[in-house]
């Protein structure tokens, strides 16, 4: 039984996949607060499917890009759970999850909200990622190609051909892992931005 979750959007999404199909899926009702919501949702999704932790055989986790704080909650949970249960942990680019759900032939752009008036985005041809992920100002990456993801909805002037899905779902993440719909990676966060930190100036004079 594969446990999948993604915390790279404002929502926490959790699912179980038994190898044949998704058997349970839950999404947080509240936005943010990933640290408070993820563990109870994992417990709840296992209860819903009537399984216990010993039934888990693998973990799939969204590696972003996405807001750092939430992203880390997902990754540290996946790594730690994988370590205690001694089961493999597969990372999936969260944008690939949206592309898999969109399931569109031809060219497709996935764009999510990167805050600070920017988007995270990646380009796909026939479902295969050909560029990205990257972080950019919407105006500099404006396109008339079809776009999925919340970034499209937020900047309609730059992405006129927007449609759903908006945010990655754990059910699709589980399908990506099980059916290898995208390249799997190590559970390493895709930050795409350096930490905001400045070297200090020399001490201020006080007299």
């Amino acid at each position, binding site marked *: 039984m594969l446990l999948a979750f993604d915390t790279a959007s404002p929502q926490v999404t959790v699912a179980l996949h038994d190898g044949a199909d998704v058997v349970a899926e839950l999404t947080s009702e509240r936005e943010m607060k990933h640290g408070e919501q993820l563990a109870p949702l994992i417990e709840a999704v296992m209860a819903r499917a009537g399984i216990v932790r010993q039934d888990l055989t693998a973990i799939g986790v969204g590696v972003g890009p996405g807001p750092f704080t939430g992203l880390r909650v997902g990754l540290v949970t996946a790594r730690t759970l994988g*370590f205690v249960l001694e089961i493999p942990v597969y990372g999936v680019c969260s944008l690939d999850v949206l592309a898999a759900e969109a399931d569109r032939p031809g060219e497709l752009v996935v764009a999510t909200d990167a805050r600070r008036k920017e988007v995270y985005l990646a380009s796909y041809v026939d479902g295969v990622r050909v560029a990205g992920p990257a972080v950019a100002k919407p105006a500099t990456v404006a396109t008339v190609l079809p776009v999925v993801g919340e970034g499209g909805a937020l900047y309609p002037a730059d992405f006129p051909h927007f449609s759903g899905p908006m945010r990655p779902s754990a059910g699709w993440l589980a399908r990506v892992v099980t059916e290898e719909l995208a390249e799997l990676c190590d559970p390493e966060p895709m930050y795409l931005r350096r930490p905001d930190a400045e070297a200090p100036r020399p001490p201020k004079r006080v007299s």
Partner: protein
Amino acid sequence: MKQEPLVLGIETSCDETGVGIVRGHTLLADAVASSVEEHARFGGVVPEVASRAHLEAMVPTIERACDTAGIALRDVDAIAVTNGPGLAGALLVGVAAAKALALGLGKPIYGVNHLAAHIAVDQLEHGALPEPCLALLVSGGHSSLLKVTDVTAGVEPLGATIDDAAGEAFDKVARLLGLPFPGGPHIDRVAREGSSVYVDFPRGLTARRDLERHRFDFSFSGLKTAVARWVEARERAGEPVPVSDVAASFQEAVCDVLVRKALDAAASQGIEDLLIGGGVAANSRLRAMAEERASRLGIRVRVPRPGLCTDNGAMVAALGSEMVARGRTPSPLDLPADSSLPVTSVLA
């Protein structure tokens, strides 16, 4: 209730990823990964850098702690984790990891207060905590006087810094003197060569008028400014700055205020045991001065060894173990990380 519970504790409130394992009052492992070197060039802890480092260090540090303790994770009775106070993003990594352990092992989780954990850690070295006791907690993040009647049930704050933490003052003065970050150990080292009476630096909040409102509170920003002024005046006059004398005089001023107020607080509460914790407790002058002055008043001083004074997972495990032993209720799985968790709340 289990008297000698096996508890794994996780600490990520600042820049140390700590995982400790204790059985009752016995320390089995205290693995710490520090990102301090990554912060050094910024002159202080950068929260995002710390959070990233916690994520990378978490599983390897858990693994190292288990190896050192020679235990299997499944044998652990409970997981304890610092859920505040501290850096929000940093705390969150530890809390999420602790929940994953609790879920994966089917064991209870205890969210614990970082400050109370600094107190509980002494049990690992000196046995059961004397209760009541008075705790002086001094580090880069805290400077508090606390009355402890039951360390698992919250502690009573008597006083705290109204501006900089004591450790922060050490860092800032070290920078003024051209010493590396973190400043505490370097000031301690160079001060040994200097005269503690070379400059009579101010003792914050010890004047009669301050004592009315701030009897047990601290202030270190005036002291830091006084050191800066003194150093600048020397430089302006084209004279060399006697670094070790300034360091020793500054250190003397900090320790004098800390010890004076701690002993006054103990005496006012009729408490005969003083416990000093936090990173600054590793300062050799603070230890010596506290022991010397306390013995004159018949007050016993307990200071954990330096390795247990700085932030670590063992202190969290020590408090967690005490909570299990005293039958406290575990935390729910939606336990939040609370960056400003008040010291009165031990259990979230």
